[in-house]
C-alpha cells in the first residue's frame, strides 16, 4: 500500500505540492487528473525521491519511508515510473539497462538465453519490433515508440506499483490501443497497483474499476470514481475545480 500524508514538495524554493494526501491500496488503480501545472508530474517524481525536491511529510510504501530512500532502493521495492517524457540515453541499449537492473536487483548472473527469450516474448506482447531491444534507450524514437519502449522495461522488471505519467500523451489511435491492451494484460497477470496521471479517458477504458482524484494548486480537491472522470471529460476541469473548491470550503 502507498500512503502519502501531509506531503509538501518544493523545488527551487517554489511550493509545488501542498498538504497532498493520497492512499492507494494493493491492486488498486488510481487516476490523478488536473489542469496543467498543478503538480501531477511532481508527485510522480516525488514518490521516487527526486533529488531536486525538498520533501516534507510522509510517503510510505508497505511500511518503507520513501522520503529517506534512494530512487534505486525505491525501484527495488517494486515501484516503476514511466515518465511523461522519458529521457533519451544514446550509447546505452535497452538490453544493457534491463540486464544490469535485473542482475543487480536479484544479485545473480543473468542467463543470457532465457533473458533474450523473455525480451522477444515481451516484444510480441507489446507489438514492438525485436530490434528495439538493442536500440539505445529511447534515442531517436517517436513519442509513441518511447512509451512502448518503456513498457519493455516494465514487463521485464515486473513491478508491483506502477506510476504512469501521461502515458497516453503523444500516442496515435493505434499506439494507444497497443499500450492500453499491454497495460491491461499486465494488470490482469500481476495485479499491480497503478497510479495513472492523465488528461483524458481513453487510456482508462482498459481498466474496469478505478478511483479518481483531482489536483489543484498542489492539493487534491475532489475524489470520486469512474463517473468523475466522465464528468471531467464532458464539462472540463474548470467546472469541477470550482465545485470541488466549494465542496472543500
Amino acid at each position, binding site marked *: 500500500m502507498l500512503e502519502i500524508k501531509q506531503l509538501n514538495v518544493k523545488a527551487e524554493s517554489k511550493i509545488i505540492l501542498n498538504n497532498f494526501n493520497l492512499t492507494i491500496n494493493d491492486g488498486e488503480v488510481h487516476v490523478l487528473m488536473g489542469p496543467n501545472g498543478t503538480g501531477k508530474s511532481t508527485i510522480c*517524481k516525488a514518490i*521516487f525521491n*527526486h*533529488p*531536486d525536491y525538498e520533501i516534507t511529510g510522509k510517503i510510505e510504501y508497505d511500511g518503507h519511508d520513501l522520503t529517506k530512500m*534512494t*530512487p*534505486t532502493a*525505491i*525501484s*527495488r521495492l517494486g515501484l*516503476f*515510473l514511466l*515518465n511523461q517524457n*522519458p*529521457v533519451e*540515453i*544514446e*550509447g*546505452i541499449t535497452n538490453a*544493457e*539497462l*534491463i540486464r*544490469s*537492473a*535485473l542482475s*543487480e*536487483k536479484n544479485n545473480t548472473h543473468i542467463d543470457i538465453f532465457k533473458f533474450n527469450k523473455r525480451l522477444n516474448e515481451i516484444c510480441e506482447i507489446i507489438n514492438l519490433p525485436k530490434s528495439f531491444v538493442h536500440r539505445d*534507450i529511447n534515442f531517436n524514437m517517436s513519442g509513441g515508440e518511447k512509451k512502448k519502449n518503456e513498457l519493455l*522495461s516494465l514487463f521485464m*522488471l515486473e513491478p508491483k506499483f506502477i506510476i504512469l505519467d501521461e502515458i497516453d500523451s503523444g500516442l496515435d489511435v493505434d499506439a494507444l490501443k497497443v499500450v492500453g491492451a499491454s497495460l491491461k494484460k499486465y494488470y490482469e497477470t500481476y495485479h499491480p497497483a497503478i497510479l495513472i496521471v492523465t488528461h483524458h479517458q481513453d487510456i482508462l477504458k482498459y481498466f474496469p474499476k478505478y478511483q479518481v482524484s483531482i489536483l489543484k494548486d498542489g492539493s487534491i480537491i475532489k475524489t470520486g470514481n469512474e463517473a468523475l472522470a466522465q464528468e471531467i471529460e464532458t464539462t472540463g476541469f474548470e467546472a469541477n475545480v470550482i465545485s470541488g473548491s466549494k465542496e472543500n470550503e
Partner: protein
Amino acid sequence: MLLVGLKKMNKLLLVGVKNTLAPGNYLISYKNKTTIDIDGEVNLAHYETTGYDLNLNLLDNAILNLNYLYIVSHDLKLTINLNNNTTLDAHITLVNEGSHKIEINLNMLGNNNKAKITLRVINKNNHDNITVAVTGNIAKNTCDNELLEDLKGLILKEDTIKICPNIEVDTNEVIANHLVTIGSFNKEDLFYLKTKGLSELTAKKLLLKRFLINNLPEDLQKHLKLEVIKFE
C-alpha cells in the same frame, strides 16, 4: 617509408621519424616523435600511452579518419596539417592520470579543407587535472575551409578539466564553429537509470562508457579499462 594498407586493420610499428601512409586501414604504434604523411583515404587508429608527439600531414586530396586514444601519462602535442581538398574526421579520447597539458593544433594551410574534431576527456582519479588546448589555425589567403570542434569533458568527482578552444582565422572565406561542454553526469539521466533499479555506481559506469565508447572504434575500446576508475 611507404606503407601499403590492407582491407583489414593493419598493425604497424612505425620506426622512422617520417612515414607515408597510402590508402588503407592502420592501427599504428611508434617509439619516437613521429611525422606521418597521409596520401589518399586512410583510416588510422592509434593507442598511445607514452606521450610521443605526433604530426599528421594530409597531402592534397587526402581523407583521414583518425581514432586516437591516449591514456595520458605525459604532456603531448598533436599537430595536424591540412593542405588542399582534404577531409579530416578526428575522434580523440583522452583518459588522464595526474596533471598534464595536451596541445592539439589543426592547421588549414590550403583551400577547400573540411575538418571535424570530436574530443572526449576524463580524469582517472579524484584530484587529477588536465588542460587541453585545441587550436584551429586557418591561414591567410585561403578559402572554402570548414572547421568544427566538438569538445567535451566529463567530471567524475573532484578532478579538473580545462578545455581551451581557439580558432584563429586569417581569412574571410571560412566556416568555423566550436562547441565546448565540461560537466558532470546529467542528473536526469542518472535519476532515470536509478528509477529502473540501477545503483548509482552502475548508472555512472554505464554513462561513462557511453561518453567514451561512442568516440572509439572497437579496436581501441579494449584499452579503456574503465573498471579501474573510482567514483567514490
